[in-house]
């Protein structure tokens, strides 16, 4: 651990007098802290239709196969083929990649506009691969020389002309660019070639090759060596949505019902292919209301069941979720959040569905909300979600988001040996005599009979009911049953995974966050600790109910708590406050994930005397 190195950022341009000296010079950094020493960020930019996303995907995979940890982040418009700008950014490192990367080392610009649009985000010392001979609308060649600021190197490759020569169309510009990138960066050509061949066939290789050959000199790229390593062969490249789908399979989901919606659709698409292989079923329903009711029906009939949607679909599901609360049906509902409100910005990330997740149904309607932070957690927390749903007979929502759901990163194969799957509490023979579906028990969980069980016949209902399920308007009964339903959330607090803490052990400044912001916050905290700032962070995975005791323990020694989230109103900060936690709110509402520098700046600002 290095002692106090002032960073050249906002806080350290201030007079030392303005800083709260107490908050500086930590030496006790939590062992759990992940730290990224060295990384490289490559961005492919262009417009939708130029193959930006597929190039990014291939490059990402190639990086992993070359032995690097990677993360792929994509940003694109909502039109199927519009001419909105689009980009794919790959960040590689020796250690697991925590965030998508604040600045770009290498920009691969598939068209002219892409250069100017992305210039401001290129690092000093960075590199731009651009098309110096683009074709105009009539197919004749122009010349183009971007004016690059000092310190940024440019390499011209005739992407359009080569693509046009080779394939008589512009669709291979991205492949030419990948070839050129291989030449420039030293990323082994065979790795890319294999991937391209597998996807687009032998024919496409020529474009790739022409790109490679066109670049003569290997440019120096900020010292990161992209040559082949032997490590990481066993690792996987997965998106959050894929990991989540695999988690559902591992948990034993039997029925998935859903309705297409960006950015959640690929969960349904993944499961449509895979779930039948383990005897499950996937159905594309006529809307989200049908989807949520279908999974309720399936769970009632004894199967683990899940649906996945995004904001607009979740809005339609809240009545069904309320029914699951009342009738005590275990179901898992995934919300891959996107920027709202209403249709909003369907392809952009945001964390603004926390309120509806916790408070979205009418009545006092208990439900459990979990939020994974990484692709790996998408797997494990989904299993957790099914476990809690079964254990508490309650709907469980998983809040992912566009950034987490669609980014692709290296993860280790999951540890399947240690998996514990919660079994539904079923009535025994004794219980089935005069069976009462909603029997009042100590922890609120009543044995749940499923069709096929003799003697377990009952009517599940959304009406307030007595222990036997018959409707009741009796005051005492209503309060007893309400207490039963809410009591089960206490169980969830105990059963569920605990918040994750990282950063200085002697922290006086604390960050609390949830979900996909964790990576950027980890990097920021580690950088802050590196310069001696006494900062730590807490990431609860269970957002409702809150494990308040643990959060309070974290907060107690702190002088300031800042809640970081990707929305406008600071939804989690408000929830924490209503639970008695005093905190400031730091939000970003631009449809994109946080940059590390933004979080770091906020941490530093917290060091000012107030």
């Amino acid at each position: 651990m290095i002692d106090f190195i002032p960073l050249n950022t906002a806080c350290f341009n201030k007079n030392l007098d303005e800083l709260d000296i107490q908050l500086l010079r930590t030496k006790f950094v939590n062992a759990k802290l992940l730290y990224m020493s060295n990384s490289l960020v490559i961005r492919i930019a262009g417009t939708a239709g130029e193959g930006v996303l597929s190039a990014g995907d291939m490059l990402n995979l190639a990086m992993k196969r070359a032995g690097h940890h990677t993360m792929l982040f994509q940003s694109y418009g909502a039109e199927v083929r519009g001419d909105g700008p689009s980009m794919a950014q790959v960040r590689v490192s020796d250690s697991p990649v925590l965030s998508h990367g604040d600045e770009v080392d290498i920009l691969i610009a598939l068209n002219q506009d892409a250069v100017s649009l992305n210039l401001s985000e290129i690092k000093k010392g960075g590199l731009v691969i651009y098309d110096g001979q683009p074709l105009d609308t009539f197919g004749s060649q122009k010349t183009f020389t971007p004016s690059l600021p000092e310190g940024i190197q440019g390499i011209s490759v005739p992407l359009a002309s080569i693509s046009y020569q080779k394939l008589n169309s512009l669709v291979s510009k991205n492949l030419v660019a990948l070839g050129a990138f291989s030449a420039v960066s030293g990323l082994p050509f065979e790795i890319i070639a294999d991937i391209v061949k597998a996807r687009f066939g032998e024919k496409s290789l020529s474009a790739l090759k022409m790109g490679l050959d066109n670049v003569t000199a290997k440019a120096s790229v900020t010292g990161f060596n992209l040559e082949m390593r032997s490590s990481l062969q066993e690792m996987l490249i997965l998106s959050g949505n894929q990991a989540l789908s695999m988690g559902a399979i591992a948990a034993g989901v039997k029925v998935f019902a859903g309705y297409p919606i960006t950015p959640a659709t690929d969960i349904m698409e993944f499961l449509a292919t895979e779930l039948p292989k383990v005897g499950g079923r996937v159905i594309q329903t006529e809307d989200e209301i049908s989807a949520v009711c279908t999974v309720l029906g399936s769970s009632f009939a004894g199967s683990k069941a899940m649906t996945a949607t995004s904001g607009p679909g979740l809005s339609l599901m809240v009545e069904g979720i309320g029914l699951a609360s009342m009738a005590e049906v275990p179901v898992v509902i995934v919300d891959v959040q996107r920027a709202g409100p209403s249709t909003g910005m369907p392809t952009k990330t945001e964390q603004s569905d926390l309120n509806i997740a916790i408070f979205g149904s009418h009545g006092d309607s208990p439900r459990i909300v979990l939020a994974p932070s990484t692709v790996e957690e998408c797997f494990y927390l989904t299993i957790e979600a099914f476990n809690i749903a079964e254990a508490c007979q309650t709907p469980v929502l998983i809040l992912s988001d566009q950034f987490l759901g669609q980014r692709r990163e290296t993860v280790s194969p999951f540890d399947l040996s240690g998996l514990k799957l919660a079994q539904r509490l079923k009535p025994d023979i004794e219980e089935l005599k005069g069976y009462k579906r909603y029997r009042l028990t100590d922890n609120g969980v009543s044995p749940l009979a499923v069709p096929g069980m003799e003697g377990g016949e009952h009517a599940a209902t959304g009406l307030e009911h007595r222990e036997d399920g018959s409707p009741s308007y009796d005051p005492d009964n209503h309060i007893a049953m309400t207490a039963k339903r809410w009591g089960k959330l206490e169980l969830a607090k105990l059963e569920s995974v605990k918040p994750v803490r990282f950063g200085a052990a002697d922290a006086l400044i604390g960050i609390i966050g949830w979900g996909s912001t964790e990576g950027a916050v980890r990097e920021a905290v580690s950088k802050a600790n590196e310069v001696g700032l006494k900062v730590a962070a807490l990431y609860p995975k269970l957002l409702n109910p809150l494990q308040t005791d643990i959060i309070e323990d974290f907060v107690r020694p702190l002088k300031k708590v800042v809640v970081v989230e990707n929305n406008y109103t600071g939804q989690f900060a408000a929830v924490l406050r209503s639970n008695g936690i005093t905190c400031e709110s730091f939000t970003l509402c631009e449809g994109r994930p946080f940059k590390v520098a933004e979080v770091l700046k906020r941490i530093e600002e917290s060091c000012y005397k107030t």
Partner: protein
Amino acid sequence: MDKKSPMDYRGAKPIWCQGCGDYGVLSCLMKALSDLNIESRDLALASGIGCSSRIAAFVKCYGFHSIHGRALPIAMGIKLANPQLTVIAAAGDGDGLAIGGGHLPHMARRNMDITYLLIDNSLYGMTKGQPSPTAQKGVVSKTTPKGSPEAPLNPVAMALVYGASFVGRGFPGKPDALVDLIKEGISHRGFSFLHILSPCITFNERETFRYYNERTELMSTDYLPDDRVKAITLAMTEDKLHLGTFCKEERPVYTDYGTDIEVMERETLIKKLYERFK
């Protein structure tokens, strides 16, 4: 398996008004179940919200008295989870044709093996008498004090056009035919749509038992339910409402698909998937 009697299916005590048509629907259903000798434990009955939907608790079985309009998706979920069960869905005309009307076409085109009892009293009983989608034009009610300007829907013709593989109509005032219809519907492998005329004696002064006794007639024995277009024509033009089977068609049910896939262990699949993502 012991031979069942209708009383073996008795669930909670019904709370309907005395004389409500739904009593007849319930007893015909219980009779049909006992004739078919279905085990209560293997029977699931999903319903929405409304007077008629209360039926889910009045039959001994696995009942799911859900939310307004959602009997069908709940029933579908049950069927998907366990195709071995006999699955019945029950809904009122408001429940099934207004708020829940969007689900019906899809259940029909999927040919989900569900028997759907659309219990029609031409109004919203539970909320005290507002006109439903099958209410006659001109009906005066508290929400249509000058008479409703809306034409009624034709549930039988709709189900036929949607492609329901079994479509019929029944009326508890002619119970034998209704019992037979329910039996046929349940026995039919596929989506069975049963339009059941069930007078609301409290709010409906028009569509009464007497009215339907006069205006319904049993389907002629000559009629063969083998032609969808003919059935639609009948449903669109009938003067008296026909009781019986309008159309019946054998075709694979939704849950028949995908059963030819070889099933593996979850862990095996996940490990296979690893290969794809390396």
